[in-house]
């Protein structure tokens, strides 16, 4: 049963299995274990990023393709939901339409970009996606009549998913049974289904061919697989799932803006989560995203404390201030690519 759910791709390490189980249990019981708005927000963010990073892993870890447009696809899903809720009114139909439209737009964009760049050289893809993604980000902030520009959009989702809706009068274990809770479980379920689906994909024949192409594209072509088609298909699939993750995020936040879904910083976060967790494992995405989001939320405060502690010294406070978080991320990123290329999951599997 469990093997079928995981598509026969077991974690293959006792520690890893325990960690994954811990993450799953914590996320499933988050509203009860960690009460409070902020921790629930963190848990939802973790769910969304697990799915987003796992979909990126399909591209980077399995396909060996570097894309810088993953936030663009993420943003398409989020803006799809936001725009349809804004203009079609508050209904389940609008929500479903938004998710569908966002995914279709993401697939179409991925198909076009993939066709243009992957047919020549896989490295073109990295450069072209960077160019296109930044153009789209600028476009979204310029078209302020439609997208709300830099301010983003606030919109209404069906009432059953908002805190105003109560489906039980009495709190259970001190947690209010309201729409927010329901919303959280929608996000969690979406993320779980998405990750299991991705596991299914990477362990299918399609996933095997992708890995073969990653290892040696020339040879895969010689065996008779159409490399470009496989790469483009992987790009489209990963874009669609990223858009779905974006839609979940939009449903959770009830707000979208360029800085929350489209910015380059989020792209870097995704890259880091994949590399730290372990490329080409899917499970790496789960651990990477969890660790990273928790660290992002709580470690920055720690850095602030450290900066305060070194107040008198010349350059240390500037280096340790919470705003310089990216500097340390960048260093960590470089070091992990050099010394830790298989990430946490790879290490755990080796050391079993």
């Amino acid at each position: 049963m469990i093997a079928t759910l995981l598509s026969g791709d077991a974690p293959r390490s006792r520690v890893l299995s325990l960690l994954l189980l811990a993450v799953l249990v914590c996320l499933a019981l988050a509203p009860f274990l960690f009460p409070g708005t902020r921790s629930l927000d963190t848990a939802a963010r973790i769910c969304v990023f697990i799915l987003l990073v796992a979909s990126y892993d399909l591209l980077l870890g399995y396909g060996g393709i570097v894309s810088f447009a993953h936030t663009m696809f993420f943003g398409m899903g989020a803006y799809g939901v936001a725009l349809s809720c804004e203009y079609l009114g508050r209904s389940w139909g609008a929500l479903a339409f938004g998710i569908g439209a966002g995914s279709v737009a993401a697939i179409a964009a991925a198909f076009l970009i993939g066709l243009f760049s992957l047919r020549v050289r896989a490295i073109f893809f990295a450069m072209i996606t960077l160019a296109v993604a930044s153009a789209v980000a600028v476009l979204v902030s310029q078209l302020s009549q439609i997208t709300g520009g830099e301010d983003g959009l606030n919109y209404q989702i069906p009432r059953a998913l908002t805190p105003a809706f109560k489906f039980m009068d009495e709190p259970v274990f001190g947690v209010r049974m309201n729409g927010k809770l329901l919303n959280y479980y929608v996000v969690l379920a979406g993320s779980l289904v998405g990750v299991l689906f991705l596991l299914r994909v990477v362990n299918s024949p399609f996933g095997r061919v992708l890995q073969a192409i990653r290892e040696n594209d020339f040879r895969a072509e010689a065996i008779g697989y159409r490399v470009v088609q496989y790469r483009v298909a992987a790009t489209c699939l990963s874009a669609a799932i990223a858009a779905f993750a974006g839609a979940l995020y939009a449903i959770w936040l009830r707000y979208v803006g360029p800085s929350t879904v489209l910015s380059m910083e989020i792209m870097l976060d995704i890259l880091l989560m994949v590399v730290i967790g372990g490329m080409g494992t899917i499970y790496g995405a789960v651990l990477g995203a969890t660790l990273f989001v928790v660290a992002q939320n709580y470690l920055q405060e720690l850095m602030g404390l450290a900066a305060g502690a070194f107040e008198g010294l010349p350059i240390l406070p500037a280096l340790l201030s919470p705003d310089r978080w990216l500097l340390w991320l960048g260093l960590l990123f470089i070091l992990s690519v050099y010394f830790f290329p298989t990430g946490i999951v790879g290490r755990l599997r080796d050391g079993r």
Partner: protein
Amino acid sequence: MSLAPDHAPTMARKGLAERLEPWAPVLLVPVMVLLGYLAIPATSSWLTLTVSGLAMGMMIFIMASGMTLVFGLMDVINFGHGAFVSIGAFVGVSVLIWLGGMAGAPSLVLNLLAMGAAAIAAMVVTGGVGWAFEKVIVKPVYGAHLKQILVTMGGLIVIEQLIVVIWGPEEIFIRRPETLQGGLTFAGAAIEKYRLLAVGVGLVLFLAMRFVLRRTKIGLIVRAGVENGEMVEALGYRLRLVFVGVFIAGSALAGLGGVMWGLYQEIITAHMGQEVMILIFIVVIIGGLGSVEGCFIGALLVGLLQNYIAFLEPKVALISNIGLMVAILMWRPMGMIPVVKAK
């Protein structure tokens, strides 16, 4: 058994179209200028836009040329190239502020001296940083594109953040040297002096680079290395040293481009390198990765198109460069002047 077909060698001269074909990309620049002339109603504004397009193109070329050569020579794709642009701008501007007396004096000679000092300081610093960057970040990942992209991107972030640590998070506004402010009026068109300077510097650099690559021994080795590195090494040249040299030179050029770009925008931020990177990528791709001439033509096309479109249809300007890239890749999938690898 059938007989072998008769050989009938002909010595026909190539037709005009065939002979022009390799030059087609070069012709694109005048075609673009002409289209601009037809599309823009007033001749004077067309002239202004053309000069500013050329100036922008020249500056992009200065920044992009290093990247394209580095790729051609060692197959290294450097996503951190934009960091050198930022460093160059910050160092150059700091020198200019420090030499405020010279830059503010109403004398062209003093102003140019201050500019020269700023440019040289920027090039020395970015060259040094480039050398370290190559040694620490790029060298361990030769031959692995995926890791190169990831690691150099990481390097870009780290350098940008270090700039913020050193110079502070606020953007710096900078005035151009006194005599380079304002413009000339030529045939009813206002032309900024600084843009003329940028065009001049870019042209001189392009010609110098062409001279070095075509007429000197080191240029010969570089070009041969781009075409077939193994063979050059087999002949006894240490291509690795040549490569480091090219990397340093490319970084220094990016630094120079950074100073000029910073003064052109009159504002510098740590993120400017990342923003310019996008233009650089477009230029390098449409030019053909590894080709300096292609890079030059691509940069001019991007600069001109951006200026014309910004005048005609400001909303479209954001995506005009992507459109240009798509059109050129449909025409020549490997870029305008593809680099032939003898492998």
